[in-house]
């Protein structure tokens, strides 16, 4: 996976558990280095090894950690840019959900070698969405669960989220939009300067 993703995982671990834990994780994952470069690409199994090692070192289940990573990605002030880029997807939460189909293409526009997991968004019934996620890193769908929870909050929408892994390894995230105007939501200033 791309260095931007791996580096984000590294930032999540050091910010949440500290540098010592990150040291143990890189050792246990047998990386041979301690810092990911954001603008380089790495083999997919490197990311898998890091997640497995993190689960081992912290004694927390993988899906728990992956969901946490998703939450971290869009809520840490350090990565304000990620939240903003996602918010460009739509004016309302529903519009945003439907824009997820284009997310991998949008990401490639910015960084041409950034390959995100393949995403497919379906509106099953009014207010019921299903996000299909095909990733080389199993459990990556949980990252979207964590992300969607924060972004829904950002839009002021109340949602229920569910995750399921099919036999073929394709993950599904079920999104039920309970109330699209549940809360005020956060302002999105189009022209904000992001440090």
């Amino acid at each position, binding site marked *: 996976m791309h260095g*931007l993703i791996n580096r984000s995982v590294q930032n999540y671990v050091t910010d949440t558990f500290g540098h010592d834990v990150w040291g143990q994780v890189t050792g246990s994952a047998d990386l041979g280095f301690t810092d990911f*470069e*954001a*603008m*380089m690409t790495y083999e997919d199994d490197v990311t898998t090894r890091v997640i497995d090692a993190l689960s081992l070192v912290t004694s927390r289940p993988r899906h728990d950690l992956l969901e946490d990573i998703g939450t971290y990605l869009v809520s840490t002030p350090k990565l304000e*840019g990620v939240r*903003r*880029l996602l918010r*460009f997807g739509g*004016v309302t939460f529903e519009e945003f959900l439907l824009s997820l189909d284009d997310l991998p293409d*949008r990401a490639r*526009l*910015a*960084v041409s070698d950034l390959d995100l997991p393949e995403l497919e968004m379906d509106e099953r019934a009014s207010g019921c969405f299903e996000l299909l996620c095909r990733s080389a890193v199993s459990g990556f769908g949980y990252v979207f669960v964590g992300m969607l929870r924060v972004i829904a909050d950002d839009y002021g929408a109340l949602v229920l989220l569910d995750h399921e892994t099919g036999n073929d390894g394709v993950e599904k995230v079920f999104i039920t939009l309970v109330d699209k105007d549940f809360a005020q939501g956060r302002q*999105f*200033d*189009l*022209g904000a300067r*992001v440090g």
Partner: protein
Amino acid sequence: MNNVQLNAMMDVLCPMHVLLEKDGTISHAGPTVQKICPPDRLVGSSFFDLFAVKRPKGIRNIEALRRRAGSKLHISLRDDPDSDLKAVLVPYDIDNGKVVINLSFGISILDGVRTYALSNADFAATDLAIEMLYLIEAKSAAMDASRQLNLRLQGAKIAAEEQAFTDTLTGLKNRRALDHVLTRLVSTQASFAVMQIDLDFFKAVNDTFGHAAGDHVLQAVAQIMVEETRNADTVARVGGDEFTLILPNVGSEQMLLSIGDRLIERLENPIKFQGNPCNISASIGTVWIQEGHMLDAKDILADADMALYQSKNAGRSRQTLFQKTDIVAPSIWAD
């Protein structure tokens, strides 16, 4: 279609448009224009009271403007002369001389959005403005990450080069660095001196007190050489107990010889290691190259080696200055 329907349609399709009467009076303004102009002064005002046509030049009234129908115009706001909007005029009611002018921020979209605090809703759903803003932000973030990587790589490169030119035990330059300096001086045909220095009795220190003592002595020797030379001089360790000094801008033979004397004198002071005095000395062979010479680096080092050999043969602990004439005589200044 009546006026109300027309206005409603235009507000959705082109939220940044104005409708003008035959005399150039604004009869309707789209919702986004109302954000960038004082809304109370819009309808009823003359277009030219609020906007100026920057290009093409010389358009100051509605008749001139009408003649430019269909082609691209550059327009600024009277209240903000630096602003740069793109615009196009189209007649929509030819009998009555009514026209529509549609505006856009063009490349200044980011400034526009910031100045007037615009949101997604201020642009038509089909307008690429939001995608443009997305790209600006995404590309800036990516460039920033790349720049940081470049800075780190630059730092690593400098560190690696620094290491590759340095003798890790003494911190002096190594043979690679020496070759580098020598090649440069030879190519400019400058005047400089090369001093080959071999430590005397160093093997005895190693044999008697061990390698740790030897390493300590080499570090002390390096320290002395650095202290006894100028910043512009190059001090290199080129072998186990072999050193080479390159001294540019040498004023006189006397100056060279006094450097050699000082070095030998200081190196002969016993160097303490774990309480034991380590006694060494040095043999030196020096060659002084005059400006405009036609020598190559190999010859220069060979000449310095020959002078060094003479010092050793003559009983060590002394220096010899290489003479161009046939036989090299050991100098009598040392000892």
